């Protein structure tokens, strides 16, 4: 079984790529500023939160979330999935 953050990265890449034109689900996507570069809009956040919850099998408290937490796939993994440091 893959480490959870690798599974999460693959799922997140695939999800982001499915919601934006001309985006490939490859590792380079991990560093892309998803909202600053308008790959996603704020309206994608509830779906993204659902995906994060499903991948880690645990709710996310959006009231304590900050914009940098979901700024990129790297940031999402660091905030919500890295063992011992995820929220």
């Amino acid at each position: 079984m893959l480490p959870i953050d690798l599974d999460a990265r693959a799922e997140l890449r695939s999800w982001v790529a499915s919601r934006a034109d001309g985006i490939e689900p490859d590792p380079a996507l991990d560093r892309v500023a998803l909202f600053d570069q308008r790959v996603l809009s704020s309206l994608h956040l509830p779906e993204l939160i659902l995906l994060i919850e499903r991948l880690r099998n645990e709710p996310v408290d959006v009231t304590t979330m900050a914009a940098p937490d979901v700024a990129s796939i790297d940031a999402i993994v660091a905030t919500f999935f890295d063992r011992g440091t995820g929220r």
Partner: protein
Amino acid sequence: MMTGASGPAVTRAAMATLREPLQRLVDSSRRTFRNPYESIDWPVSVDPTADWFTAPELTTVHGTPLWDVIGDGARRRLAFLEALNFYSLNIHGERDLMEGLVTRLYRPDLSDAASYLHHFIDEENKHSVHFGTFCTRYGRVYRSRQPPGAAAPATPDADLRFFAKVLVFEEIIDRFNVAQAKDERLHPIARFINQSHHAEEVRHLAFGRRVVAELWRAHRASWSSAQIDDLRRYLAQFFVTTWRQFFNPDVYRDAGFDDPWDVAERLWASEAQRELRRAFSKRIVEFLTVHEILLEDPHAAY
């Protein structure tokens, strides 16, 4: 990009054309003004496994294999939890709506709408009193997964996005209200909440259709194709965001399902539920496509 001609002066002129219909809405709101604290005699308690609080056909489980494997009491309890979720997503939606209306109240270019905005805000607040009272008396308010956002700028583009989102949200909600307002299977409280909401939403929908059509007509020529494409993508995604709220893993967890996120995904993808979403979106999608605000169905929503 927006040009100088597409600013507040154009919005003001567009809104001036709506003075007469807006006054009729104001008159109607004043004639039917009511006290939300006197309109319902709340029972001390309700029995979620005995009564229906959501019409069975409108639950997110209906028409799926899961419906067939749970018993009657579990179906009713799930329908009750989905009523809590429906009222909760109304509370969250109305909070954002009231915030957007308050921000626009007495803005000079929207001043012709000010009298009606007072009623709109008042009526939305009253709806939230009903929804909130039900949730807190008999269950809980389910959380929103939409993080608080930054205030939108006072631009025609932001105005159109706001009023179009309000219209999409209220059109979809109204389909549920209409279907359940006279459904004799529902507990009287659930029937009343749906009926009462619909009675005032009729005015809000009339307002929304007028304002969205007029803002679009007045400003579209000054917007670039890239800006209009972005607007269309945004509104299409709003259908997804709105409908996704109905498939709440927190509800499925409370209903006793082991893997609530997986349940949410399976129900979202089921053909019966996709068809319900398509059917309940049809009226507002037709309005948006007739006006060419959208060019096609928001396929990702169903």
